[in-house]
C-alpha cells in the first residue's frame, strides 16, 4: 500500500508541477492575475505531495518491504535502521526522487517571498522552477520509478553497497543536492528577469542570498565527499578528478564566480549580462552533472547503474532547459544596458579577472572530462584523461586567484590608484615571502619550490585579506568596536578567503610531505615512519550487524610517548560478500596517522599500509571555514527580508503591486 501511495502522490505532484510550469508563465505575459498567483499554490501543493511520496519510500525501507524492487535491490533486513533510511537515496531511482523533492522544497521557500516581489516577476520564477520540476518528475515517473513492484517477493534484499554504509556517505548526497538544486533558484531568477526585461541591480540583490545558501551546501557536500573518500577508501587520497567529482566541482567554480559577479552587479550595476550568463551556466552544469553520472557516457567509480534510455531522457531535458535558456539569453541579453564604467585598475576589473579565471578553470575541467568522449565519437582513438592532466592544468590557473583575491579587497570600486595599492602592499609582499621561506626552511626543505610558493601564496592571501579588514577597523577608535562595526557580509568575505588559503596550505604540505609504506608485519613487529613507530599488537575476530571482520590493533609511539591506539578492520559483508577495509586514523591538526590492513601472508603476518599525512586536515578545515564565511555573508542585515523590501522598493523589478482585491 505504501508504495502505491508513494506512486500516487508522485503523479499528483507531477500534475501540480504541470500547472506551476504553465499557468504562471502565460499569466505573466498576458497579465492574468489569478494565473500568476496559481504558481504559488501549485508549488506548495507540489511540495506536499512530493514529501508524502518520498516519505512513503522511506517507510518502505524502514518496513523492509522487499516487494518493492528498489528496496529489494538496495536493502536487507540485517541492515541497521539508520542505513536503511539512508539507502533510500543510495541508488539512482531514490536519489532522483530526492532531487525532485529538494527542488520542491526550494520552490516552497521561493513561494514564501511572493509578496515582496512584483507579481509578474515572481510568477515567472515559479513558472520556470515548475518547468524544471515537471521535467524531473517525468524523468522519475517514466524511467526511474522507485515504486515498481517485484514479484515474486524475495525473502531478503541484496543489501546496500557496503561503501555507502557509512555516516559521511549518507549525508553527502542530500547536501550536494541541496546545492545543485538550489542553483535552480538563481537560474530561475535570471531567466525570469530576462523574460520580463527586468535586469536592474535589484535582481542581483534578491538572487544573492539564494546563491549563497546553495553555494554553502555545495561546498559542504564536496568537502564531505572528499573527507569521506580519504578515510573510507583506504589509500590517503582525497580527490581523484573522477568525472563525477568534476561534475560537482564545475558548478562550484562557476557559482563562486557567480557570487562575485552578483556582488559587482548589486553594488555597481556592473556585469549584468555576465552575471545572468553565469547563473545559467551554474545550473546547467548541475544538470550536466546529473546527466554524466547516470547515462553511462563516462566511466566513474561513482556512476549509478547506467542506462542509455535514461541518458537520452536527461539529455533531452538538458537540451530543452539549457538550450532554451541560452536562446533566451541570446535574444534578450543584447538589450541589457551596461551603465557602469570602471577603470583598468579597479575592483570591477579584478572581479572580472576572477570570473575569467574561475570560468576558464571550469571549462578546462569540462574539456578534460569530455575529451575522451569527443575523440572516441570522432573515431580518433581512445585516450584517458586523469589526475595527472587535471592537476597540471588546474594549479597554474588557480594561482592568480590566490594572488589577487586578497588584493581585490584593497582596491576601490570604479577607479583605484595603482601606486596607492602598491604602497599598501610594499611590506606585505616581502613579508609573506620571507615568512614562507622561513617556514619552509625550518620545517621542510627550502629548495622545494612547490611547497615554498604554495605556502607563500597562502600567507599572502591571509595577509592581504586581514589588511583590508584592518584598514576598516582602524577607522574606529577601538579594535573591538571596529570589528563589530563591520558588516557580516564583509567579515564573511574575509573568512571565506582565509578559508581558501587554509585549504591551499593543507594541500601543498600534505601533497609534498606525506609518507607511506607498505610493509610485512608479524604480531609484535614494528615499523617506523616519519619519526613514529607503529607496532602490530594483535588481531582478533569481530562480528558486526551485517558483517564479520578481522580487527588488528596497532599502537603508535613517538619517542617514548604513546600517540595513539589504532584499530583497523578487514570486513566481509554477509550479503554482497565483498571485502572492505576500514582504515584506522589518528587525526590531528598537524598530522594524520593512518593504518590500513592489507592481505594476510600467514597466520601471524599481514601486509599493512601505514601513512603519515601532515596538515591534511587543513584541506577540509578550509572548506568548513569557507562555509562559515558564506554563512556570515548570508545573515548580513542587507539580506534580511524586511530590509530588502524597504531598500529596493523603488525599483521596477520589485515593486509590490498595490494591494487591491
Amino acid at each position, binding site marked *: 500500500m505504501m508504495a502505491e501511495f508513494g506512486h500516487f502522490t508522485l503523479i499528483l505532484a507531477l500534475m501540480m508541477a504541470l500547472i506551476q510550469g504553465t499557468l504562471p508563465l502565460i499569466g505573466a505575459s498576458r497579465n492574468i492575475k489569478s494565473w500568476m498567483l496559481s504558481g504559488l499554490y501549485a508549488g506548495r501543493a507540489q511540495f506536499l505531495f512530493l514529501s508524502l511520496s518520498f516519505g512513503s519510500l522511506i517507510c518502505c525501507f524502514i518496513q523492509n518491504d522487499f516487494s518493492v524492487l528498489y528496496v529489494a535491490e538496495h536493502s536487507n533486513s540485517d541492515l541497521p535502521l539508520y542505513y536503511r533510511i539512508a539507502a533510500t537515496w543510495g541508488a539512482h531511482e531514490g536519489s532522483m526522487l530526492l532531487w525532485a523533492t529538494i527542488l520542491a522544497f526550494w520552490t516552497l521557500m521561493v513561494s514564501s517571498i511572493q509578496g515582496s516581489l512584483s507579481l509578474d516577476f515572481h510568477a515567472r520564477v515559479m513558472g520556470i522552477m515548475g518547468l524544471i520540476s515537471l521535467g524531473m518528475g517525468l524523468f522519475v515517473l517514466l524511467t526511474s520509478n522507485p515504486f515498481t513492484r517485484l514479484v515474486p517477493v524475495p525473502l531478503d534484499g541484496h543489501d546496500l*553497497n*557496503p*561503501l555507502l554504509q557509512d555516516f559521511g556517505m549518507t549525508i553527502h548526497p542530500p547536501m550536494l543536492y541541496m546545492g545543485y538544486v538550489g542553483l535552480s533558484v538563481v537560474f530561475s531568477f535570471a531567466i525570469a528577469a530576462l523574460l520580463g526585461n527586468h535586469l536592474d541591480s535589484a535582481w542581483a540583490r534578491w538572487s544573492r542570498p539564494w546563491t549563497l545558501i546553495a553555494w554553502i551546501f555545495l561546498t559542504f557536500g564536496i568537502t564531505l565527499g572528499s573527507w569521506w573518500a580519504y578515510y573510507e*577508501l*583506504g*589509500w590517503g*587520497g582525497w580527490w*581523484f578528478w*573522477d*568525472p563525477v567529482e568534476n561534475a560537482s566541482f564545475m558548478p562550484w567554480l562557476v557559482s563562486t564566480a557567480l557570487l562575485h559577479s552578483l556582488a559587482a552587479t548589486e553594488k555597481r550595476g556592473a556585469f549584468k549580462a*555576465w552575471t545572468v550568463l553565469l547563473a545559467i551556466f551554474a545550473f546547467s552544469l548541475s544538470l550536466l552533472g546529473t546527466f554524466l553520472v547516470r547515462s553511462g557516457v563516462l*566511466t*566513474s*567509480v561513482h*556512476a549509478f547503474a547506467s542506462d542509455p534510455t535514461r541518458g537520452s531522457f536527461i539529455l533531452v531535458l538538458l537540451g530543452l532547459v539549457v538550450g532554451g535558456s541560452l536562446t533566451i539569453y541570446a535574444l534578450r541579453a543584447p538589450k541589457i544596458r*551596461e*551603465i557602469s*564604467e*570602471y577603470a583598468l585598475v579597479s575592483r570591477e576589473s579584478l572581479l572580472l*579577472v576572477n*570570473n*575569467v*579565471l574561475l*570560468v*576558464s*578553470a571550469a*571549462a*578546462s575541467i569540462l*574539456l*578534460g572530462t569530455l*575529451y575522451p568522449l569527443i*575523440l572516441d565519437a570522432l573515431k*580518433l*582513438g*581512445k*585516450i*584517458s*584523461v*586523469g*589526475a*595527472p*592532466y587535471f592537476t*597540471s*592544468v588546474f594549479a597554474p*590557473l588557480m594561482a592568480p586567484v590566490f594572488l589577487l583575491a586578497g588584493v581585490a579587497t584593497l582596491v576601490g570600486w570604479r577607479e583605484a590608484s595603482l601606486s*596607492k595599492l602598491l604602497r599598501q602592499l610594499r611590506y606585505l609582499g616581502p613579508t609573506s615571502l620571507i615568512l614562507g621561506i622561513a617556514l619552509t626552511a625550518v620545517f621542510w626543505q627550502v629548495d622545494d619550490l612547490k611547497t615554498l610558493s604554495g605556502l607563500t601564496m597562502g600567507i599572502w592571501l591571509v595577509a592581504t585579506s586581514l589588511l583590508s579588514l584592518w584598514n576598516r577597523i582602524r577607522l574606529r577608535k577601538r579594535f573591538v568596536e571596529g570589528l563589530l562595526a563591520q558588516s557580516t557580509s564583509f567579515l564573511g568575505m574575509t573568512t571565506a578567503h582565509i578559508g581558501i588559503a587554509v585549504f591551499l596550505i593543507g594541500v601543498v604540505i600534505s601533497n609534498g610531505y606525506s609518507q607511506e609504506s*607498505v*610493509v*610485512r608485519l608479524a604480531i609484535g613487529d614494528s615499523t617506523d615512519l616519519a619519526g613514529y613507530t607503529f607496532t602490530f599488537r594483535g588481531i582478533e575476530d569481530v562480528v558486526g550487524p551485517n558483517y564479520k571482520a578481522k580487527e588488528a590493533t596497532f599502537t603508535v609511539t613517538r619517542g617514548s610517548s604513546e600517540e595513539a591506539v589504532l584499530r583497523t578492520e*578487514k570486513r566481509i559483508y554477509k550479503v*554482497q560478500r*565483498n*571485502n*572492505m*577495509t576500514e582504515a584506522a586514523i589518528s587525526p590531528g591538526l598537524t598530522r594524520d596517522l593512518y593504518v*590500513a590492513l*592489507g*592481505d594476510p601472508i600467514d597466520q601471524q603476518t599481514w*601486509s599493512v*599500509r601505514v601513512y603519515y599525512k601532515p596538515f591534511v586536515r587543513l584541506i577540509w578545515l578550509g572548506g568548513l571555514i569557507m562555509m562559515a564565511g558564506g554563512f556570515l555573508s548570508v545573515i548580513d542585515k542587507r539580506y534580511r527580508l524586511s530590509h530588502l523590501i524597504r531598500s529596493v522598493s523603488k525599483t521596477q523589478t520589485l515593486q509590490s503591486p498595490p494591494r487591491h482585491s
Partner: protein
Amino acid sequence: MRIMLLLIIGSLVAPLLGAVEVREFDDLEKQTRYEHLLKEVRCLVCQNQSLGDSDAELAKDLRDEIYSMIQSGQSEEEAISFLTDRYGDFVLYRPPFKSVTWLLWVGPVLFILAGGSIAFWPKRDKQRQANPKELTDEERLELDRLKRRID
C-alpha cells in the same frame, strides 16, 4: 558491454585498498619511479582507478610487470612504452601530446585568452562612447587637487 560487468563485478566494490604488495627496491629512485608509474597508469578493468589503487587481478599482474621492469633498471618511458604498445594510449592517465590531443593541452590557455578578450575588449569602446561628460582641463586639475587632499 554488460557481460563485461559480470566479470569485473568483483572489482567494483572489492577491497578498495589498492596495491598492498610489499615491494623491495635497490634504491629510492627505483621506488619513486615505480610509485609514480602506479599513479599514471589506468586500471583497464576498473571503473576509473589508477593501477595503484586497484585490486583487480589484471592490475596486480601489470604491477608485477612494472615492478620487474623497474627493478631491472628500465626507465619510466620504457615501462610506459611497454604498456601503450599493448593497450594503447588509453592506459595512460596523462594524455600524450599528439596532434589529436593538442586541443586538450592548449585548451586552457585558449580559454583564458578568449575569456580575457571578450571581457576586456569592448570595455574600452564603451568607455569612449559612454563618457559624454568629458572633463575640461581645469576641472581635471581641480579633481586631482581634491583627490590629493583626501589621501
